[in-house]
């Protein structure tokens, strides 16, 4: 879906939830279009971080907004409209990912640090290169890290994206995923630990 980019309209369009919601529930044609114009860009940005291709991300956003329109009567207004749309988009992405999962996920346990019986690290952590892998361009480094993030099990990767990249706080992430605050904190910490383990081979300083 190529074409001119439409800037997100004034956030007030979707922050004034009550008015917009009333117009949407009254099936006012212009209200649907306003919501699409105002929200699609933000939702696409989220979907791009979860989906392997641009087309998959756009499909997920379309599914999400259509699903939201069908479910308007079930939106109870306790969360912001934007949070609710975010949640539906994440769920649309997760459903698509599950339907097209290509390979078994890595075991999380194998990516977490191991400890000996007295609680100390089994293998001491060596320092990382301050500048990253030698001779690697910035774009290559980003691609490398992205590929390792894609190896994380889905439930951990999603939390990493929402918290560390999208900038949602713990409460917002818990609301989007329908899990507890402790679950968000645990998954985020494990996701970061696992990603560190996956990056160790590229960043650990040589002994030589």
């Amino acid at each position, binding site marked *: *879906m*190529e*074409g*001119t*980019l*439409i*800037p*997100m309209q004034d956030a007030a369009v979707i922050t004034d939830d009550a008015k917009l919601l009333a117009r949407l529930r009254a099936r006012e044609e212009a209200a*649907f*279009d306003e919501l*699409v*114009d105002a929200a*699609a*860009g*933000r939702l*696409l*940005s989220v979907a*791009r*971080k979860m989906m392997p291709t641009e087309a998959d991300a*756009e499909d997920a*956003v*379309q599914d999400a*907004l*259509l699903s939201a*329109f*069908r479910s308007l009567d079930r939106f109870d207004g306790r969360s912001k409209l934007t949070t609710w749309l975010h949640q539906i988009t994440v769920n649309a992405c997760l459903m698509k990912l599950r339907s097209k999962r290509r390979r078994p996920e890595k075991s999380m346990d194998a990516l977490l*640090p191991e*400890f000996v019986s*007295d*609680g*100390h*690290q089994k293998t*001491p*952590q*060596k*320092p*990382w290169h301050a500048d990253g892998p030698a001779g690697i361009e910035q774009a290559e*480094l*980003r*691609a490398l*890290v*992205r590929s390792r*993030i894609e190896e994380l099990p889905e439930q951990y990767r999603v939390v*990493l*994206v929402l918290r*560390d*990249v999208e900038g949602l706080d713990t409460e917002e992430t818990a609301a989007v995923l329908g899990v507890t605050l402790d679950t968000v*904190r645990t998954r*985020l*910490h494990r996701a*970061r*630990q696992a*990603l*560190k383990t996956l*990056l*160790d081979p590229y*960043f650990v300083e040589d002994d030589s």
Partner: protein
Amino acid sequence: MTNNDYITCRELIDFIADYLEQRLDAEQLRDFERHLTVCPSCVNYLAAYRRTVQLGKQALAPTEEPATGLAPEGLLKAIKAARRNAAV
């Protein structure tokens, strides 16, 4: 590390996320920082963990895609048309 007054590496690593979010209470923070004074491995682990968070943000930051808040016109039209066709 043989002094039992020190927290273990396992405890320190469990605390890292809370440490970075400044969620440790004064006693936990003291224990955390005290462990770091005697454990180079955990100093390295904490530094690598911090860097990992930074690398993750950079890797997925929107530099190769339209800025946040922008959507292709074709996508907007497709969603609006799909809604009308589905009569939702």
